[in-house]
């Protein structure tokens, strides 16, 4: 017997006060959005504005003397070389980071591992107390002889303790029964990790891919310390042109970089992250939550 059920909308009754609240809320949010967006829109606009218009002080949120010459100029020059470096470092770095972080996090997640109670604090210790600048520098330059190599850029930040802890927590949330079933079927510990745990860990791996790739994309500090000019990533190159050449001691004959070139370089550098971010934004939030709550 069919019953005639009527769906009741779960909606708060919109009285006048609530509507006013919504309007004010909307206006405040709109204001915040505009204030946040304005600098970036201005930047994009300036990158399409002619240099003469910028000198005349006519740059605004609508490009004056619209042209793409600046982009042609920037993409023709060394910018593209540094851009390519960044893509290579990000790809290699992210893959290596994922491999080594998961290889470290998985055993840490196993309470039955011998000396785990001793080893884990040692790893966590590095999150709070890093080596000093000079000692790290001596280790990498004098000890490992890695100066002016890609390894010097990737190695120091290949494993982030914080991300390893996130992964460890996720691995701990995978039911033990699944792993035991795998072992009964003849899988080794490593086989369980590869065949059972990793396929079940796609969410955390996706999150870590995002975290690590953003970290490598934006990093300039290791380049400043260890890489020569040809090896710079785009973030460091960008930093040098944004900082410009002030008239500090020795810069008396410096000529400044045009504002439209700076803007163009900034837009091109953040563009990949901006394009990817809306698609994978949810992972940022999820990443923070993953493994954080135990049932």
């Amino acid at each position: 017997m069919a019953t005639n059920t009527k769906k009741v909308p779960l909606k708060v009754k919109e009285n006048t006060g609530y509507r006013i609240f919504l309007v004010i809320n909307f206006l405040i949010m709109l204001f915040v959005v505009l204030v946040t967006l304005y600098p970036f829109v201005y930047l994009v606009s300036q990158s399409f504005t002619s240099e003469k218009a910028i000198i005349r002080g006519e740059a605004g949120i609508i490009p004056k003397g619209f042209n793409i010459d600046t982009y042609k100029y920037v993409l023709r020059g060394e910018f593209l070389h540094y851009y390519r470096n960044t893509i290579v470092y990000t790809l290699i770095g992210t893959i290596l980071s994922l491999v080594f972080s998961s290889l470290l996090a998985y055993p840490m997640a196993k309470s039955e591992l011998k000396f785990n109670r001793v080893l884990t604090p040692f790893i966590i210790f590095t999150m709070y107390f890093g080596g000093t600048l000079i000692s790290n520098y001596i280790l990498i330059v004098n000890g490992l002889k890695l100066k002016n190599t890609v390894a010097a850029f990737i190695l120091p930040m290949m494993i982030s303790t914080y991300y390893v802890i996130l992964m460890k927590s996720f691995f701990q949330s995978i039911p033990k029964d699944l792993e035991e079933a795998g072992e009964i079927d003849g899988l080794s510990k490593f086989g369980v990790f590869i065949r059972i745990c990793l396929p079940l860990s796609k969410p955390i791996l996706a999150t870590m891919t995002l975290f690590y790739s953003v970290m490598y994309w934006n990093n300039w500090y290791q380049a400043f310390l260890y890489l020569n000019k040809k090896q710079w990533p785009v973030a460091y190159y960008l930093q040098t042109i944004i900082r410009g050449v002030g008239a500090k001691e020795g810069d008396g004959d410096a000529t400044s970089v045009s504002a439209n070139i700076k803007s163009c370089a900034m837009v091109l550098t953040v563009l990949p992250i901006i394009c990817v971010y809306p698609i994978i934004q949810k992972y940022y939030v999820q990443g923070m939550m993953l493994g954080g709550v135990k049932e």
Partner: protein
Amino acid sequence: MKKLKIACLLLTASMLGTGLAACTKEDGGVETSATTIPPTIATVATEDEEDLDYVYGEHFYSEVPVTYSMFFSDASWYAMKDTWLTEGVFKDIEDITNVHLDIISYDSNDYMNNITLDINAGNAAYIIPKIYDDSQFVDGGAIVPISQYVQYMPNFVDFYNTYNMQEDLLTITRNDGNYYKLPGMYDATMPDYSLLVRKDLFEAAGVDIEAIEKDYTWEDLCDALVKVKAYMVSQKMCSESDYIWSDLWCGNESGQGNGGNLLKLIGNTYDVNAGWAIGDGMRYSQENDAFYFSPVTENYKEFLKVAHKFVEAGILDPETFTQDDSTATNKFFNGQTAIISVNKSQYANFVSNLEENLGKGNFDVYYAVAPRGLNNYSPAGAGRLENGVMISQNALEELGEDEFIKMLRFVDWLFYSEEAYTLTKWGVEGKTYKVNDDGTKSLLPGYCCSGLGYASTSDSDIDIRLEWGYAGGNFWYGHTMALASDHFIPPVAAFVEHVSEYRDIVPLSPGLAPNEDQSEEMNLIATPLIDNVNTWTLSFVTGKEDIDAKWDEYVASCEDLNCQGLVDLYAEVYGK
């Protein structure tokens, strides 16, 4: 547990003992400094010189190929290219001397950070050029006290003796009686930063800047600018509420939070440290033969008043002290403002930008001598020293003394000989430049050099600085005024001549050589004190605070931050 407690007690006692011992030593008196270097130096020959077919100083050639490592400050506006090594300045140096320079290059923006790291990590290159302040390296033992070896450097010695450089070198001599940097040396003070004015607007307003610059004061300049502004308003070039002076090198990018170049220029003429020259505020009084803290003097008050006068009169834009440099230059280039700070290197660049924006023939500019204040000092400031070269201890240890002295011969040739100076500045005679009949030099057709003021006339012109590294800042500085000015374009040469003709040389302050503890104490006092001075100064100049009403409060704030302690420390170090 008991043993642990005893161990802790012993440790505490030993720490206290050490601390007390340190205090006792400090209280026991400060070691007197031995800051003496000779008025003249005699060169010392080595045995190998007898086998040479030339005299050290004129040339340098190593019979066997040698390699010396050298740091290199790579300026981003003329970045180093491979061609510099294969066919440019470094190749030329190698061809002439048989010395291969192993270049360790760092971007000029981070040069000091990078080389500091390398020096502290024990990885210093043998030759360390482009050093302005060597104080942070002196106590670490990584740098050779070069004053002990200058007798092996004939060009250095010749310049030192000929132009009586002792007093100048004393200003960089440390507490142990040594100097650690081989500075660039001029035979006279070299003016650089001053003012570029729109001569056409000044003339239209009835002000003949060339006629008044000889002895005009900052007040006179302000009055002149008021007339210029009235003219510009009458011509509808700006409105009454607009400012006609928006300056660069004072704001966010390069002003360093202290008012940068402009306040330095004005302060210099009021016997006070200000702007870029604020330092720790201490200044030497010839009259009293003592050091004093200049930001609390009546002169400083006068300096503040005159600087504020430009803002109050609606001439100087107060945003000068916060804005980016490009804001100021853009306003000048598009004709919104009538005056701006300039230096020798930027003169041609500014004129070219004006031509591009206003059109050739639509303006006229003049590189004016900065006005007088309470004194008639040159804006060049005191002293004839430039940045310089340090030599690392690694060189001495790895090469051994004999080879080290040989390297110093090379350093002497590279940084102090006329032959190397001309090579690194102009390139190769007959290839990139020629010597004219009157002895002057000029680039050959087909070549240009932004650094030397030779603009490109066609797309096929090769910039000798960009392509081969000539006229770069690592080598090109110092020397006699005749050599240093051999590339000046007429307006720049006229400016340099006018400064030396119209203004007095700033007297040198006596060299001070505090020991490590004294330096640290000076820094501890000076850092918050100067922050306070800068904050108040900018408030006074921009009119946020009234100078007369708040002066006492400002002075009290400096006293609270122990400016007297700084004066006492200076007196202690100076020994008076």
